[in-house]
């Protein structure tokens, strides 16, 4: 309790000689990867820390579950790239079981052909040249540019955004550095950066490429988790967001975690426990308790009625839950609450997880099974991508969606019985708000699953024959079972107006809230979603810094 001993006596929760309940320095709502990361950093700093997870298993959306006996699904998030190396180092995650295995390549099946890119540079060049000689040259230039852009923008991932109204120069040092770096970029890169900030993914890629399946597949990373199409302005930036991922210093490398993404959460949880953090599952929080004046958090009340006192409450839930579910109405300033309500979630994706007793065979393929070892992207053309969005705009799931498929069992045989396979399909679009008519997600989701299997079967006709079991996750499931508001996988869209010092609310990007001792650390905060952990880490460091300043 070294953290804040000066003020503890004011807030002793129990009165009149009854049992003095345990009091924590920090209680963290939510045991997803960010909540656990915050807990690990706070515990490491000596704070008495408790994590409260509503579900029976840890990890939030970073979770593995043996839904079909013998088959472990990464139920929601399924690949990893952005997990911050400093977190891996600081928390010694390798010691706690972190094992990231590289995914190699992207296979785009077509009718009668395919496009297959791998990390074998010569193979990829020859393959693209088969489509377009100039595209092959452009591919190298584009890769170089994006790597430079990612290197330029990447420091923001490790930076607490300044408050735009702040006059403390220290808050601005990082941003000034970024501004200085921008001024030093060659003009060509400056204009590319402006393009990334303003253009659509399709328009941006059109500047380089002519090969449809190449553009379509590359454009996909611009729409993941957003309710936008590849032709919507602003999606070019998201291309860059996905270029910032790195594994072992190699940009744009994607990997799978051994045992599924849940094992990442387990590693962070193990690190947190090793520093003394307590973690409880089946412990959903119903509300945050406040001082009578309502301006400061004092702890939480669980759904079971149990009260837990804490000096600081940190919510890793999304911004809507953090402010509208855990607090009584009328506590927050009206304009702030209005902004929370305006924060865009608009979940747009679903997940179809399949247990297979053999690998499907794509009709036109390069031979062997190596081509299935990376991602398989159902993205034959920009038109296919945009049409998938057209349906979503009017509240229907895409009959012919964009699907990003991986077979984790090809990389990590531990997730399926020997010789059997797990197939993970990330599907877009699955709009949270369905139009009036055919019904809600509960009676639409199997039809949605059918649409995905039908579409993939066009390219791999034996898929249906090898499916042992199917598990569909709709945006409504994500909301109900995982607390992802409107099924948004990133706790709110990664659109430009919701990033950096505007994430989640302009002026509140520094993990604090209008309520004293009530903080945020989830993906609704800077720098956004993905298995990155930066939010959780930055929130913890900011909290530790703030406390140190106060005590001093």
């Amino acid at each position, binding site marked *: 309790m070294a953290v804040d001993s000066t003020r503890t006596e004011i807030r002793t929760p129990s009165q009149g000689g009854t049992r003095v309940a345990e009091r924590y320095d920090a209680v963290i709502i939510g045991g997803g990867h960010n909540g656990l990361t915050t807990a690990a950093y706070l515990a490491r700093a000596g704070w008495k820390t408790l994590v409260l997870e509503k579900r029976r298993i840890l990890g939030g959306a970073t979770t593995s579950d043996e839904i079909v006996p013998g088959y472990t699904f990464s139920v929601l998030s399924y690949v990893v790239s952005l997990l911050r*190396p*400093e977190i*891996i*180092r600081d928390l010694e*995650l*390798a010691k706690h079981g*972190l*094992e*990231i*295995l*590289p995914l*190699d390549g992207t296979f785009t099946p077509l009718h009668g052909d395919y496009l297959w890119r*791998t*990390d*074998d540079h010569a*193979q990829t060049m020859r393959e693209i040249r088969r489509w377009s000689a100039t595209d092959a040259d452009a591919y190298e230039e584009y890769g170089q540019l994006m*790597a430079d852009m990612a*290197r330029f923008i990447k420091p923001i991932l490790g930076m607490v955004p300044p408050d735009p109204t702040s006059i403390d120069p220290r808050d601005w040092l990082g941003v000034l550095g970024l501004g200085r770096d921008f001024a030093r970029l060659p003009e060509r890169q400056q204009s590319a950066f402006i393009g990334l900030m303003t253009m659509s993914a399709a328009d941006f890629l059109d500047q380089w490429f002519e090969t449809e399946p190449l553009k379509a597949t590359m454009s996909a990373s611009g729409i993941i988790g957003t309710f936008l199409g590849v032709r919507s302005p602003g999606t070019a930036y998201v291309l860059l967001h996905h270029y910032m991922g790195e*594994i*072992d*210093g*190699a*940009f744009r490398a994607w990997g799978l975690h*051994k045992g599924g993404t849940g094992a990442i959460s387990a590693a962070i949880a193990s690190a947190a426990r090793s520093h003394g953090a307590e973690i409880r599952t089946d412990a959903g929080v119903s509300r945050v308790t406040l001082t009578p004046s309502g301006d400061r958090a004092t702890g939480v009340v669980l759904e079971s009625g149990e009260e837990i006192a804490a000096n600081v409450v940190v919510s890793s839930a999304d911004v809507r839950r953090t402010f509208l579910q855990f607090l009584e109405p009328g506590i927050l300033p009206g304009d702030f609450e209005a902004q929370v309500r305006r924060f865009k979630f608009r979940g747009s994706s679903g997940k179809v997880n399949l247990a297979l007793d053999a690998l499907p065979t794509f009709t036109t393929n390069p031979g062997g099974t190596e081509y299935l*070892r990376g991602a398989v992207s159902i993205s034959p053309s920009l038109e296919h991508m945009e049409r998938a969005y057209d349906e979503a705009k009017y509240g229907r799931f895409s009959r012919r969606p964009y699907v990003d498929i991986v077979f984790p*069992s*090809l*990389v*990590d*045989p*531990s997730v399926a019985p*020997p*010789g*059997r396979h797990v197939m993970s399909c990330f599907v877009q679009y699955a709009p949270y708000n369905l139009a009036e008519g055919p019904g809600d997600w509960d009676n639409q989701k199997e039809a949605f699953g059918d649409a995905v299997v039908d579409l993939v079967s066009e390219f791999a006709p034996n898929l249906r024959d090898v499916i042992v079991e199917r598990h569909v996750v709709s945006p409504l499931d994500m909301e109900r079972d995982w607390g992802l508001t409107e099924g948004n996988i990133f706790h709110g869209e990664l659109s430009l107006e919701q990033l950096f010092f505007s994430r989640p609310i302009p002026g509140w990007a520094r993990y604090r809230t209008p309520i004293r001792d009530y903080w945020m650390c989830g993906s609704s905060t800077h720098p956004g979603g993905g298995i990155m952990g930066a939010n959780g880490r930055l929130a913890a460091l900011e909290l530790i810094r703030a406390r140190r300043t106060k005590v001093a």
Partner: protein
Amino acid sequence: MTVGTAFHPRTAPLNAHLQWREWSGFFAASAYHASHVIEYNAIREAAALIDVSPLFKYELRGPDAVRLVDRLIVRDAAKLSPGRVFYTPWCDEHGKVLDDGTIHRLDDEDGAQVVRWTAADPQIRWLRMNAHDLDVEVRDVSESVAAVALQGPLSRDVLEAATGTSFVDLRFFRRRRATLAGIPIDVSRTGYTGDLGYELWIPADRAVDAWDALVAAGEPYRIRPAGMLALDVVRLEAGLILIEADYTSAVHSHIPSQNYSPYELGLGRLVDLDAGDFIGRRALVAEMAAGGPPRRLVGIDIDWPEIEALYAAQGLAPYAPPTVSRAPVPVFAAGRQVGRVTSTGWSPLLKKMLGLASVGLAHAQTGTRLAMEWTVEARRGTVAATVVELPFFDPPRKRA
């Protein structure tokens, strides 16, 4: 002229990028896949086949086979009963290491002891020279015995599927006979990966059939062939030394500092000075009586943020070379050179830059902070390196 091993008819078509290196006169695959990291992952997550046939292999046969072993190795060969395998260095008369390898006590035949001796360098002259008064026949079986390492957490599943027998009872550093696709083979619970794994000793004329049987049985376990680049990464993680990288054989040393005693290679735990005489014992007794050798092999954890800073100073994104470097690099303490790093590489599993180093005794304590030369864009810099315990990676399954 470099030639193929007994597995070459199978490994050659798999080597899609013609990435070969020479190993004792044989073609050894550096990597089969474009990226050896995939092969590294097969060793650490699934199962891998590594052709180690270029090892020198000798068969010692006769009533005095074990006496010959005892005369040469630093360990007590009296404990090398049939079915056991020793890893050991052996020394010249000055107590300097000639080579290191595994020595397998095969089953006795017709009352004669049989030993399989494996080595990185040719040893037949040394073996025969020291057997002059013993009743033992030493034969070079390097070309008639093919060897493949089956390594990885699923290697036991593959071996059991391929042979139809259980290997749960074959403990770490034990061996026994087995039958694979009708082929009589010898299986040792050994390897150079620091993981669960086996080495299979196969009649060279049946090597291709054995390979096919292992690949067929291994398919459901995602088995894949792995080359030397991947092997180098796992052996570094396992803290296993490599001749000609981490030390020089006394046969090939030109100056005293190129000679290493077992105590200088982290192999002191194996040396048994009390169990009878062996070649080099007197020198090692004298060395220890004088306080031990003045340098030691240590593991170092090289500070990655400092490497990143050297790249950042050049305006570059950091780069972790995916292969192990065997280029010796100076290491410093308080500005003075105190030794050399002999193997350096990135561990994808531990997310660390690791090294094996030979440093002065005063700097060999765990936790000692050293500085190591690191060059970026042809600019020399130094980065911090901390002495840590070996092995870097030691999963329970290694001994399981």
